[in-house]
Protein backbone atom coordinates (compact mmCIF):
# COMPACT_ATOMS: atom_id res chain seq x y z
CA UNK A 1 0.00 0.00 0.00
CA UNK A 2 0.93 3.64 -0.19
CA UNK A 3 4.02 4.32 1.92
CA UNK A 4 4.23 7.95 2.92
CA UNK A 5 7.89 7.75 3.92
CA UNK A 6 8.89 6.21 0.62
CA UNK A 7 6.91 8.88 -1.21
CA UNK A 8 8.69 11.60 0.77
CA UNK A 9 12.07 10.12 -0.14
CA UNK A 10 11.07 9.58 -3.77
CA UNK A 11 9.99 13.16 -4.36
CA UNK A 12 13.46 14.80 -4.57
CA UNK A 13 14.72 11.93 -6.72
CA UNK A 14 11.81 12.25 -9.12
CA UNK A 15 12.16 16.03 -9.22
CA UNK A 16 15.86 15.81 -10.03
CA UNK A 17 14.84 13.59 -12.96
CA UNK A 18 12.28 16.18 -13.95
CA UNK A 19 15.08 18.66 -14.52
CA UNK A 20 16.62 16.32 -17.08
CA UNK A 21 13.21 15.64 -18.64
CA UNK A 22 12.58 19.35 -19.03
CA UNK A 23 16.04 19.95 -20.44
CA UNK A 24 15.60 17.13 -22.96
CA UNK A 25 12.22 18.51 -24.00
CA UNK A 26 13.43 22.08 -24.44
CA UNK A 27 16.58 21.11 -26.33
CA UNK A 28 14.84 18.39 -28.32
CA UNK A 29 12.07 20.72 -29.35
CA UNK A 30 14.58 23.39 -30.32
CA UNK A 31 16.20 20.84 -32.62
CA UNK A 32 12.78 19.86 -33.99
CA UNK A 33 11.71 23.46 -34.63
CA UNK A 34 14.87 24.30 -36.56
CA UNK A 35 15.32 20.98 -38.38
CA UNK A 36 11.60 20.78 -39.16
CA UNK A 37 11.74 24.16 -40.84
CA UNK A 38 14.83 23.13 -42.75
CA UNK A 39 13.09 19.98 -43.99
CA UNK A 40 9.99 21.96 -44.99
CA UNK A 41 12.08 24.45 -46.95
CA UNK A 42 14.17 21.73 -48.61
CA UNK A 43 10.99 19.96 -49.69
CA UNK A 44 9.83 23.26 -51.18
CA UNK A 45 13.11 24.03 -52.90
CA UNK A 46 11.67 22.95 -56.23
CA UNK A 47 14.74 20.79 -56.85
CA UNK A 48 13.83 17.15 -57.19
CA UNK A 49 17.28 15.89 -56.36
CA UNK A 50 16.94 17.59 -52.97
CA UNK A 51 13.25 17.12 -52.32
CA UNK A 52 13.11 13.43 -53.20
CA UNK A 53 15.78 12.10 -50.81
CA UNK A 54 14.80 14.49 -48.02
CA UNK A 55 11.15 13.52 -48.38
CA UNK A 56 12.01 9.82 -48.42
CA UNK A 57 14.20 10.10 -45.35
CA UNK A 58 11.54 12.08 -43.49
CA UNK A 59 8.87 9.51 -44.34
CA UNK A 60 11.18 6.74 -43.12
CA UNK A 61 11.88 8.48 -39.80
CA UNK A 62 8.22 9.31 -39.33
CA UNK A 63 7.06 5.74 -39.84
CA UNK A 64 9.52 3.96 -37.55
CA UNK A 65 9.20 3.95 -33.74
CA UNK A 66 11.26 6.51 -31.89
CA UNK A 67 12.45 3.81 -29.50
CA UNK A 68 13.93 1.81 -32.34
CA UNK A 69 15.63 4.96 -33.59
CA UNK A 70 17.07 5.58 -30.13
CA UNK A 71 18.50 2.07 -29.94
CA UNK A 72 19.85 2.31 -33.46
CA UNK A 73 21.52 5.64 -32.79
CA UNK A 74 22.89 4.29 -29.50
CA UNK A 75 24.61 1.49 -31.41
CA UNK A 76 25.56 3.37 -34.58
CA UNK A 77 26.73 6.69 -33.12
CA UNK A 78 29.20 5.96 -30.34
CA UNK A 79 30.96 8.64 -28.38
CA UNK A 80 28.03 10.95 -27.72
CA UNK A 81 26.71 11.25 -24.21
CA UNK A 82 23.22 9.76 -23.85
CA UNK A 83 21.42 13.05 -23.29
CA UNK A 84 22.90 14.69 -26.40
CA UNK A 85 22.13 11.65 -28.48
CA UNK A 86 18.61 11.42 -27.09
CA UNK A 87 17.96 15.11 -27.74
CA UNK A 88 19.14 14.77 -31.34
CA UNK A 89 17.13 11.62 -32.07
CA UNK A 90 13.96 12.92 -30.44
CA UNK A 91 14.44 16.30 -32.09
CA UNK A 92 14.95 14.87 -35.56
CA UNK A 93 12.05 12.45 -35.11
CA UNK A 94 9.74 15.34 -34.30
CA UNK A 95 11.27 17.48 -37.02
CA UNK A 96 9.70 15.15 -39.57
CA UNK A 97 6.28 15.86 -38.07
CA UNK A 98 6.90 19.58 -37.69
CA UNK A 99 7.95 19.83 -41.34
CA UNK A 100 4.40 18.79 -42.23
CA UNK A 101 3.04 21.37 -39.82
CA UNK A 102 5.16 24.07 -41.39
CA UNK A 103 4.10 22.93 -44.84
CA UNK A 104 0.45 23.38 -43.92
CA UNK A 105 1.22 26.82 -42.52
CA UNK A 106 3.12 27.89 -45.62
CA UNK A 107 0.34 26.62 -47.89
CA UNK A 108 -2.14 28.64 -45.85
CA UNK A 109 -0.43 31.94 -46.67
CA UNK A 110 -2.56 33.48 -49.44
CA UNK A 111 -1.17 33.68 -52.96
CA UNK A 112 -1.72 37.43 -52.86
CA UNK A 113 1.03 37.75 -50.28
CA UNK A 114 3.54 36.20 -52.66
CA UNK A 115 2.30 38.40 -55.46
CA UNK A 116 2.64 41.53 -53.36
CA UNK A 117 6.25 40.53 -52.67
CA UNK A 118 6.90 40.12 -56.38
CA UNK A 119 5.24 43.46 -57.11
CA UNK A 120 7.53 45.09 -54.53
CA UNK A 121 10.57 43.27 -55.96
CA UNK A 122 11.37 41.77 -52.56
CA UNK A 123 14.19 39.25 -52.86
CA UNK A 124 13.25 35.60 -52.36
CA UNK A 125 15.00 35.39 -49.02
CA UNK A 126 13.29 38.48 -47.67
CA UNK A 127 9.92 37.23 -48.93
CA UNK A 128 10.33 34.07 -46.89
CA UNK A 129 11.80 35.70 -43.82
CA UNK A 130 9.67 38.81 -43.50
CA UNK A 131 6.38 37.88 -45.12
CA UNK A 132 5.69 34.17 -45.57
CA UNK A 133 7.25 32.48 -42.54
CA UNK A 134 5.97 34.93 -39.90
CA UNK A 135 2.44 34.39 -41.15
CA UNK A 136 2.87 30.64 -41.60
CA UNK A 137 4.32 30.12 -38.13
CA UNK A 138 1.61 32.22 -36.53
CA UNK A 139 -1.00 30.00 -38.11
CA UNK A 140 0.59 26.78 -36.80
CA UNK A 141 1.69 27.97 -33.34
CA UNK A 142 -1.01 25.90 -31.59
CA UNK A 143 -0.03 22.80 -33.52
CA UNK A 144 3.61 23.36 -32.57
CA UNK A 145 2.54 23.69 -28.94
CA UNK A 146 0.69 20.40 -29.07
CA UNK A 147 3.75 18.67 -30.46
CA UNK A 148 5.87 20.18 -27.68
CA UNK A 149 3.56 18.65 -25.08
CA UNK A 150 3.55 15.36 -26.92
CA UNK A 151 7.35 15.31 -27.07
CA UNK A 152 7.51 16.10 -23.37
CA UNK A 153 5.47 12.99 -22.68
CA UNK A 154 7.72 10.84 -24.86
CA UNK A 155 10.94 11.75 -23.09
CA UNK A 156 10.71 8.59 -20.91
CA UNK A 157 11.83 6.68 -24.02
CA UNK A 158 15.22 8.26 -23.41
CA UNK A 159 15.61 5.96 -20.40
CA UNK A 160 16.32 3.09 -22.82
CA UNK A 161 19.62 4.75 -23.65
CA UNK A 162 20.30 5.41 -19.93
CA UNK A 163 19.37 9.09 -19.83
CA UNK A 164 18.49 9.73 -16.18
CA UNK A 165 15.24 11.50 -16.88
CA UNK A 166 12.28 11.39 -14.54
CA UNK A 167 10.86 7.94 -15.28
CA UNK A 168 14.36 6.46 -15.24
CA UNK A 169 14.92 7.95 -11.81
CA UNK A 170 11.53 6.84 -10.57
CA UNK A 171 12.24 3.33 -11.75
CA UNK A 172 15.66 3.30 -10.10
CA UNK A 173 14.16 4.52 -6.84
CA UNK A 174 11.43 1.93 -7.11
CA UNK A 175 13.86 -0.92 -7.47
CA UNK A 176 16.12 0.07 -4.59
CA UNK A 177 13.31 0.76 -2.12
CA UNK A 178 10.70 -1.48 -3.70
CA UNK A 179 8.38 1.50 -3.80
CA UNK A 180 7.32 1.58 -7.46
CA UNK A 181 3.79 2.71 -6.66
CA UNK A 182 5.01 5.82 -4.88
CA UNK A 183 7.77 6.81 -7.29
CA UNK A 184 5.76 6.22 -10.47
CA UNK A 185 2.70 7.94 -9.07
CA UNK A 186 4.79 10.98 -8.27
CA UNK A 187 6.34 10.95 -11.74
CA UNK A 188 2.90 10.72 -13.31
CA UNK A 189 1.68 13.58 -11.13
CA UNK A 190 4.60 15.76 -12.21
CA UNK A 191 3.88 14.97 -15.87
CA UNK A 192 0.25 15.88 -15.37
CA UNK A 193 1.06 19.09 -13.50
CA UNK A 194 3.41 20.19 -16.25
CA UNK A 195 1.55 19.20 -19.39
CA UNK A 196 -2.00 20.01 -18.39
CA UNK A 197 -1.47 23.75 -17.91
CA UNK A 198 0.64 23.81 -21.05
CA UNK A 199 -2.19 22.23 -23.02
CA UNK A 200 -4.59 24.81 -21.65
CA UNK A 201 -2.19 27.55 -22.65
CA UNK A 202 -1.97 26.13 -26.15
CA UNK A 203 -5.74 25.99 -26.38
CA UNK A 204 -6.02 29.63 -25.27
CA UNK A 205 -3.45 30.57 -27.87
CA UNK A 206 -5.44 28.67 -30.46
CA UNK A 207 -8.60 30.56 -29.55
CA UNK A 208 -6.79 33.88 -29.67
CA UNK A 209 -5.33 33.21 -33.09
CA UNK A 210 -8.56 31.80 -34.45
CA UNK A 211 -10.24 35.11 -35.21
Amino acid at each position, binding site marked *: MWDMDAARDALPVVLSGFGVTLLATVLGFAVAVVAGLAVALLLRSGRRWIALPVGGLAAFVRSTPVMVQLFAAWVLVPGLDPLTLGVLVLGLHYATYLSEVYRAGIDAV*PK*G*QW*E*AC*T*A*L*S*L*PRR*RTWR*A*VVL*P*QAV*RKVLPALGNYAVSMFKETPFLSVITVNEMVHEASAFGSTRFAYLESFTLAAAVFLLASWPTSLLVRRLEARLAH
Partner: protein
Amino acid sequence: MPTDTVPEAPRARAPEKVRFEGVTKRFGDHTVLDGLDLTVAPGERVTLIGPSGSGKTTILRLLMTLERVTDGVVHLDGEPFSHMPAGPGGKLVPADERHLGPRRRRIGMVFQQFNLFPHMSVLANVVEAPRHVLGLDADEAAARARELLALVGLAGKADAHPTRLSGGQQQRVAIARALAMRPDLLLLDEVTSALDPELVAEVLDVLRDVADGTDITLLCVTHEMGFARDVSDRLLMFDRGRVLEAGTPDELLDAPEHERTRSFLRSLR
Protein backbone atom coordinates in the same frame (compact mmCIF):
# COMPACT_ATOMS: atom_id res chain seq x y z
CA MET B 1 17.68 50.94 -89.30
CA PRO B 2 19.20 53.88 -87.42
CA THR B 3 22.87 53.15 -86.78
CA ASP B 4 23.71 56.30 -84.86
CA THR B 5 21.74 55.42 -81.73
CA VAL B 6 23.50 56.52 -78.56
CA PRO B 7 23.76 53.29 -76.62
CA GLU B 8 24.25 54.93 -73.21
CA ALA B 9 20.77 56.34 -72.91
CA PRO B 10 18.31 54.17 -74.76
CA ARG B 11 15.72 54.67 -72.08
CA ALA B 12 15.60 58.44 -72.30
CA ARG B 13 14.74 58.38 -75.95
CA ALA B 14 12.39 55.41 -75.81
CA PRO B 15 9.14 56.46 -77.44
CA GLU B 16 7.32 53.71 -75.64
CA LYS B 17 6.93 52.74 -72.03
CA VAL B 18 5.30 49.42 -72.67
CA ARG B 19 4.86 47.42 -75.84
CA PHE B 20 3.10 44.10 -76.22
CA GLU B 21 4.24 42.44 -79.41
CA GLY B 22 2.00 39.62 -80.57
CA VAL B 23 1.44 38.49 -77.00
CA THR B 24 -0.58 35.35 -76.47
CA LYS B 25 -1.40 33.93 -73.07
CA ARG B 26 -3.04 30.58 -72.67
CA PHE B 27 -4.07 28.80 -69.49
CA GLY B 28 -4.39 25.19 -70.58
CA ASP B 29 -6.41 25.36 -73.75
CA HIS B 30 -8.12 28.59 -72.73
CA THR B 31 -6.70 31.52 -74.67
CA VAL B 32 -6.83 34.67 -72.55
CA LEU B 33 -4.81 36.94 -74.81
CA ASP B 34 -4.61 36.30 -78.51
CA GLY B 35 -1.70 37.89 -80.35
CA LEU B 36 -2.06 41.23 -78.60
CA ASP B 37 -0.24 44.29 -79.92
CA LEU B 38 -0.37 47.26 -77.60
CA THR B 39 1.85 50.27 -77.06
CA VAL B 40 1.71 52.65 -74.13
CA ALA B 41 3.66 55.92 -74.28
CA PRO B 42 5.67 57.22 -71.32
CA GLY B 43 3.39 59.15 -69.00
CA GLU B 44 0.30 57.94 -70.78
CA ARG B 45 -2.77 56.90 -68.79
CA VAL B 46 -4.50 53.95 -70.33
CA THR B 47 -7.59 52.25 -69.00
CA LEU B 48 -8.61 48.78 -70.00
CA ILE B 49 -12.29 48.02 -69.96
CA GLY B 50 -14.35 45.06 -71.01
CA PRO B 51 -16.22 42.08 -69.66
CA SER B 52 -14.51 39.92 -67.05
CA GLY B 53 -12.40 37.18 -68.56
CA SER B 54 -11.50 39.34 -71.53
CA GLY B 55 -7.81 39.40 -70.62
CA LYS B 56 -7.43 42.87 -69.07
CA THR B 57 -6.06 41.72 -65.75
CA THR B 58 -3.76 39.26 -67.49
CA ILE B 59 -2.07 42.18 -69.23
CA LEU B 60 -1.21 43.73 -65.88
CA ARG B 61 -0.14 40.39 -64.43
CA LEU B 62 2.16 39.72 -67.38
CA LEU B 63 3.78 43.11 -66.90
CA MET B 64 4.24 42.48 -63.19
CA THR B 65 5.79 39.09 -64.08
CA LEU B 66 3.14 37.27 -62.07
CA GLU B 67 2.47 35.29 -65.25
CA ARG B 68 4.68 34.34 -68.18
CA VAL B 69 3.69 34.92 -71.79
CA THR B 70 2.85 31.87 -73.87
CA ASP B 71 3.96 33.57 -77.04
CA GLY B 72 5.15 37.01 -78.12
CA VAL B 73 7.31 39.54 -76.29
CA VAL B 74 6.59 42.21 -73.70
CA HIS B 75 8.85 45.26 -74.02
CA LEU B 76 9.55 47.78 -71.30
CA ASP B 77 11.24 51.12 -71.95
CA GLY B 78 12.08 50.10 -75.48
CA GLU B 79 13.84 46.84 -74.66
CA PRO B 80 12.64 43.27 -74.30
CA PHE B 81 11.35 42.55 -70.81
CA SER B 82 9.64 39.17 -70.87
CA HIS B 83 12.56 37.92 -72.94
CA MET B 84 16.26 38.65 -73.18
CA PRO B 85 18.80 38.32 -75.92
CA ALA B 86 21.06 35.32 -75.53
CA GLY B 87 23.99 33.83 -77.40
CA PRO B 88 26.00 35.38 -80.19
CA GLY B 89 22.97 35.88 -82.42
CA GLY B 90 21.09 37.82 -79.75
CA LYS B 91 18.17 35.46 -80.12
CA LEU B 92 15.39 36.23 -77.65
CA VAL B 93 14.85 33.64 -74.94
CA PRO B 94 12.51 33.78 -71.92
CA ALA B 95 14.02 36.15 -69.37
CA ASP B 96 15.61 34.87 -66.18
CA GLU B 97 15.43 36.55 -62.80
CA ARG B 98 18.67 38.47 -63.41
CA HIS B 99 17.04 40.15 -66.40
CA LEU B 100 13.64 40.68 -64.79
CA GLY B 101 14.80 41.86 -61.37
CA PRO B 102 16.14 45.35 -62.03
CA ARG B 103 13.47 46.09 -64.65
CA ARG B 104 10.62 44.94 -62.47
CA ARG B 105 11.55 47.54 -59.87
CA ARG B 106 10.29 50.31 -62.14
CA ILE B 107 6.81 48.80 -62.01
CA GLY B 108 4.35 49.06 -59.15
CA MET B 109 1.05 47.32 -58.75
CA VAL B 110 -2.06 47.78 -56.64
CA PHE B 111 -4.27 44.73 -56.27
CA GLN B 112 -7.99 44.23 -56.03
CA GLN B 113 -7.56 42.48 -52.66
CA PHE B 114 -4.97 44.99 -51.34
CA ASN B 115 -2.58 42.18 -50.32
CA LEU B 116 -1.18 44.17 -47.43
CA PHE B 117 1.09 42.27 -45.05
CA PRO B 118 -1.33 41.64 -42.16
CA HIS B 119 1.36 40.96 -39.56
CA MET B 120 3.09 44.30 -40.09
CA SER B 121 2.05 47.79 -39.10
CA VAL B 122 0.94 50.19 -41.81
CA LEU B 123 4.30 51.94 -41.65
CA ALA B 124 6.22 48.67 -41.86
CA ASN B 125 4.22 47.71 -44.94
CA VAL B 126 5.30 50.89 -46.70
CA VAL B 127 8.88 50.79 -45.43
CA GLU B 128 9.57 47.14 -46.31
CA ALA B 129 10.53 47.43 -49.98
CA PRO B 130 12.39 50.76 -49.87
CA ARG B 131 14.54 49.37 -47.06
CA HIS B 132 15.18 45.91 -48.39
CA VAL B 133 15.09 46.48 -52.13
CA LEU B 134 16.29 50.04 -52.59
CA GLY B 135 18.55 49.84 -49.55
CA LEU B 136 17.36 53.02 -47.85
CA ASP B 137 18.30 53.31 -44.19
CA ALA B 138 15.55 52.96 -41.62
CA ASP B 139 15.09 56.67 -40.87
CA GLU B 140 15.03 57.71 -44.48
CA ALA B 141 12.61 54.97 -45.44
CA ALA B 142 10.32 55.80 -42.52
CA ALA B 143 10.35 59.50 -43.33
CA ARG B 144 9.39 58.83 -46.93
CA ALA B 145 6.74 56.34 -45.89
CA ARG B 146 5.17 58.94 -43.60
CA GLU B 147 5.11 61.45 -46.44
CA LEU B 148 3.32 58.94 -48.64
CA LEU B 149 0.88 58.04 -45.89
CA ALA B 150 0.10 61.73 -45.53
CA LEU B 151 -0.44 61.89 -49.29
CA VAL B 152 -3.06 59.15 -49.10
CA GLY B 153 -4.62 60.76 -46.01
CA LEU B 154 -3.48 58.21 -43.48
CA ALA B 155 -0.77 60.05 -41.58
CA GLY B 156 -2.44 59.12 -38.31
CA LYS B 157 -2.58 55.40 -39.04
CA ALA B 158 1.14 54.67 -39.38
CA ASP B 159 1.26 52.45 -36.30
CA ALA B 160 -2.10 50.76 -36.86
CA HIS B 161 -2.36 47.24 -38.19
CA PRO B 162 -3.94 46.80 -41.62
CA THR B 163 -6.62 44.48 -40.26
CA ARG B 164 -7.92 47.35 -38.13
CA LEU B 165 -8.50 49.56 -41.17
CA SER B 166 -11.47 49.83 -43.49
CA GLY B 167 -11.12 48.46 -47.00
CA GLY B 168 -10.72 51.94 -48.40
CA GLN B 169 -7.98 52.74 -45.93
CA GLN B 170 -6.23 49.44 -46.64
CA GLN B 171 -6.26 50.15 -50.33
CA ARG B 172 -4.83 53.62 -49.75
CA VAL B 173 -2.01 52.02 -47.74
CA ALA B 174 -1.44 49.67 -50.66
CA ILE B 175 -1.17 52.66 -52.99
CA ALA B 176 1.36 54.31 -50.68
CA ARG B 177 3.28 51.03 -50.50
CA ALA B 178 3.45 50.76 -54.29
CA LEU B 179 4.50 54.41 -54.67
CA ALA B 180 7.24 54.00 -52.09
CA MET B 181 9.28 52.14 -54.70
CA ARG B 182 9.02 55.22 -56.97
CA PRO B 183 7.75 53.22 -59.93
CA ASP B 184 7.39 54.99 -63.24
CA LEU B 185 4.73 52.54 -64.32
CA LEU B 186 1.81 51.87 -62.00
CA LEU B 187 -0.62 49.02 -62.59
CA LEU B 188 -4.06 49.31 -61.01
CA ASP B 189 -5.94 46.05 -61.04
CA GLU B 190 -9.61 46.67 -60.23
CA VAL B 191 -8.53 48.51 -57.13
CA THR B 192 -12.03 49.44 -56.04
CA SER B 193 -13.85 46.23 -56.94
CA ALA B 194 -13.51 44.71 -53.48
CA LEU B 195 -14.68 47.87 -51.70
CA ASP B 196 -18.04 48.78 -50.26
CA PRO B 197 -19.60 51.42 -52.53
CA GLU B 198 -19.22 54.23 -50.01
CA LEU B 199 -15.45 53.63 -49.80
CA VAL B 200 -14.75 53.76 -53.53
CA ALA B 201 -14.54 57.55 -53.75
CA GLU B 202 -11.75 57.98 -51.18
CA VAL B 203 -9.54 55.57 -53.10
CA LEU B 204 -10.27 57.11 -56.49
CA ASP B 205 -9.63 60.60 -55.09
CA VAL B 206 -6.18 59.53 -53.96
CA LEU B 207 -5.48 58.04 -57.38
CA ARG B 208 -6.64 61.23 -59.11
CA ASP B 209 -4.15 63.14 -56.94
CA VAL B 210 -1.40 60.71 -57.91
CA ALA B 211 -2.30 61.03 -61.58
CA ASP B 212 -2.42 64.82 -61.41
CA GLY B 213 0.70 65.25 -59.31
CA THR B 214 3.11 62.97 -61.18
CA ASP B 215 4.03 61.96 -64.71
CA ILE B 216 3.78 58.28 -63.86
CA THR B 217 2.54 55.94 -66.57
CA LEU B 218 -0.77 54.41 -65.54
CA LEU B 219 -2.34 51.22 -66.72
CA CYS B 220 -5.71 50.59 -65.08
CA VAL B 221 -8.30 47.90 -65.19
CA THR B 222 -11.50 49.30 -63.74
CA HIS B 223 -15.26 49.34 -63.99
CA GLU B 224 -15.41 52.91 -62.66
CA MET B 225 -16.11 54.80 -65.86
CA GLY B 226 -16.17 58.21 -64.16
CA PHE B 227 -12.64 57.67 -62.93
CA ALA B 228 -11.58 56.26 -66.28
CA ARG B 229 -12.91 59.36 -68.01
CA ASP B 230 -11.12 61.68 -65.59
CA VAL B 231 -7.66 60.21 -65.64
CA SER B 232 -7.32 58.36 -68.93
CA ASP B 233 -5.75 59.55 -72.13
CA ARG B 234 -6.95 56.44 -73.86
CA LEU B 235 -9.48 53.71 -73.28
CA LEU B 236 -9.21 50.23 -74.68
CA MET B 237 -12.24 48.02 -74.93
CA PHE B 238 -11.27 44.35 -74.62
CA ASP B 239 -13.22 41.42 -75.81
CA ARG B 240 -12.06 37.81 -75.90
CA GLY B 241 -8.37 38.56 -75.62
CA ARG B 242 -8.30 41.28 -78.26
CA VAL B 243 -8.70 45.04 -78.38
CA LEU B 244 -12.14 45.54 -79.83
CA GLU B 245 -11.84 49.30 -80.06
CA ALA B 246 -9.76 52.13 -78.67
CA GLY B 247 -10.13 55.84 -78.31
CA THR B 248 -10.21 58.81 -75.99
CA PRO B 249 -12.62 58.47 -73.08
CA ASP B 250 -15.10 60.77 -74.80
CA GLU B 251 -14.96 58.83 -78.04
CA LEU B 252 -15.29 55.44 -76.46
CA LEU B 253 -17.77 56.24 -73.71
CA ASP B 254 -20.01 58.62 -75.61
CA ALA B 255 -19.84 57.24 -79.13
CA PRO B 256 -18.71 53.63 -79.12
CA GLU B 257 -18.56 52.04 -82.53
CA HIS B 258 -19.29 48.47 -81.61
CA GLU B 259 -22.50 47.08 -80.31
CA ARG B 260 -20.52 44.93 -77.85
CA THR B 261 -18.97 48.05 -76.35
CA ARG B 262 -22.39 49.70 -76.10
CA SER B 263 -23.94 46.71 -74.38
CA PHE B 264 -20.95 46.41 -72.04
CA LEU B 265 -21.21 50.06 -71.04
CA ARG B 266 -24.97 49.69 -70.54
CA SER B 267 -24.36 46.74 -68.25
CA LEU B 268 -22.28 48.94 -65.92
CA ARG B 269 -25.06 51.38 -65.24
